[in-house]
């Protein structure tokens, strides 16, 4: 699959984030078991697997969003650049500025397009002047391939955009805080094919600046956009490796069954 793009799959082998023996419990439910993954720098990593397999749960461990769920408990070790992100000295709020997140459903704030993008830089004090903020907003919108569509109506409400535009606005919003890793939880599941294609193209461009982790139900999407793929099943990480290998020559029979549509 996609053999022509194999050249593009050359990636740095430097791990940006690494997870070892991660366990997640929701109350008494053991949702994620013994997950070991290295997220490589400037790489798109796709998490695939059937619903309820734990891939979104694991994604939410990477920026400690599970902290906001009262019943969730995380064990094991997740490091970012060699520092444990679950260390008590780490402020989850600071962490989330470095590990941005885009959600399944576009969730623009009920503010103007400009204020949506400026939200992160403002709360983190990333800019010193209005001009600087304007610049951050513009570059973020450009990176999200939305600038040309909205540059004349930056003061219009973000909720008035179309679904695909809203999702790109959410990406711009996440990009504006200058993340080192961007987590995307099924970012295209609420979008039509054209908007999906735009977002996928965007993901490929964003890879030049930071790592992207994407959870997806579409195996074609995983094959199209990612260089690394992890397959989750029933809370276990079944297989993790180079995307081409996973899709063409998986070593685990469960991976093969899932990819060929026999389990899911």
């Amino acid at each position, binding site marked *: 699959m996609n053999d022509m793009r194999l050249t593009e799959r050359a990636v740095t082998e430097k791990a940006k984030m690494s997870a070892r023996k991660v366990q997640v419990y929701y109350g008494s439910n053991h949702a994620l078991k013994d997950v070991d993954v290295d997220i490589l720098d400037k790489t798109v990593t796709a998490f695939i697997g059937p619903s309820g397999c734990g891939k979104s749960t694991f994604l939410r461990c990477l*920026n400690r969003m599970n902290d906001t769920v009262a019943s969730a408990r995380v064990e094991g070790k997740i490091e970012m650049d060699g520092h444990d992100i679950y260390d008590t000295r780490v402020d989850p709020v600071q962490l989330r500025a470095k590990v*941005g997140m*885009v959600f399944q459903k576009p969730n623009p*704030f009920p503010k103007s397009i400009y204020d949506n993008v400026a939200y*992160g830089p403002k*709360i983190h004090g990333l800019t010193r002047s209005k001009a600087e903020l304007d610049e951050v907003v513009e570059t973020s919108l450009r990176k999200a391939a939305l600038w040309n569509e909205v540059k004349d109506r930056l003061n219009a409400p973000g909720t008035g955009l179309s679904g695909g535009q809203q999702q790109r606005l959410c990406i711009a919003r996440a990009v504006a805080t200058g993340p080192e890793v961007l987590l995307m939880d099924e970012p295209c599941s609420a979008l039509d094919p054209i908007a999906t294609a735009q977002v996928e193209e965007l993901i490929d461009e964003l890879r030049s600046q930071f790592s992207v982790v994407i959870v997806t139900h579409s195996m074609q999407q995983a094959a199209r956009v990612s260089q690394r793929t992890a397959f989750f099943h029933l809370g276990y990480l079944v297989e993790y490796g180079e995307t081409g290998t996973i899709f063409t020559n998986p070593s685990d029979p469960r991976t093969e069954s899932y990819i060929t549509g026999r389990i899911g």
Partner: protein
Amino acid sequence: MSVGLLSLLLLGLAALGFGLGRQRAIASVNGDARGLHSLPQYYGSSVALFTAVPAFLLVLVWLIVQPVVIESTITGMILPEDIGDGSTRELVMSDVRRIAEGIDVLVANGATGDEIAALVADPVALKARLGDAGVALAADINPHVATASAAYRGEVAMGRTMMSVAALALAVAGFLFAALRVTPQFRARNVVESFIRVLLIGASSVAILTTIGIILSLVFESWHFFQIYPAKDFFFSLTWSPKFGGGSDLGIWPLLWGTLYVSFIGLLVAVPVGLMAAIYLSEYASPRVRSVAKPALEILAGIPSIVYGLFALMTVGPFLRDYFSQPLGLGESSSSVMTAGIVMGIMLIPYVSSLSDDIINAVPQALRDGSYGLGATQSETVKQVVFPAALPGIVGAVLMAASRAIGETMIVVLGAGAAAKLSLNPFEAMTTVTVKIVSQLTGDTEFASPETLVAFALGLTLFVFTLGLNILALYIVRKYREQYE
């Protein structure tokens, strides 16, 4: 036949109709209910409804119309000279009714028809007999009035009989009509459901018609008031001094000012406290705290406002006077705008907090996640995302609280005093529109004087005010609610 007995008969007939309709339906398909359009009980219900509903409606209409018709015929029997000085036709008519009731008592005590006829011909004896039976009359009975009473009695009795006959006939007709319609194809379920729909429409029209009735009565009496008191003085005069001897000044401004001032202070207390309580409860409180604190806060809403009034009178008023207004030299009275305003604010806290809490909870979790995902703290999220998203609803909640504050009476009577004044000093006693409505209408006063009728004009003004606020609140809530749906 009495109305009670008639109702029982009609209900019995309806029950019979239910049984029969059901049975006929089952029989028509030889016991296999699957061949019917609707379930058997719908056939039964359709017969029962056709039996009872038209008959009961007839009884209802008859009971309303009959007295009117009888009054108009009997009134004709009373000649102008029968109406004494200082009396009116209405007073004579009420005598007629009273005597007729008295005769009913005599009949119940065993008087025969001949005896009654003799008594009617002899008013003096009639009065004596009525007195013996416990129906005392002040004046002697005029012969015309006596005959009118007898005629009245006769017509009432005849009307009753006719009503019973008509209602029963209608019930039987409905019964037969519906029973004959029972066939397997008959859409009994649809018929029953349309009856229910009419019932629902009826219930909602009762509410709407009552509102219209209230407005009309206010408008009507206010119109009377403006006939005898110039509207210009009412709306533009700055003094309120009703004198029951006449020559009063009935300017609405001092009252309106008091109302707005007290409400303003009330909202000044209720809005920040209520809002912050709502934010704590919906965003920060753990489920356990919330499950205790929310009902506890809502208990405040269940306290009758007179109890708040007592609290204002006994506790808050003296406290404010002793520790604030007297030391600061701002006033000597324990009744003040401040007292009433603060206590009213306490009363309004649960309204603001409960409504706002619901509105804040309705803000989608996705927005909060989006904000957390960008590295915002909980407080930044509340301040910059949740609160702005909930703001339209919160404004609506505040306006609802405002219209309650404007209509509040008891707290103001006991807390703010009764002096109509235009003053900026919040430690002075003032009064509000509602309080003056009460005081103008209580006591022995002539009902046609401007001093009394002004109450209706005040009521109408207040109504227009709160209606405007409520419409504004609904408009705001509706206009901005679409944003995140």
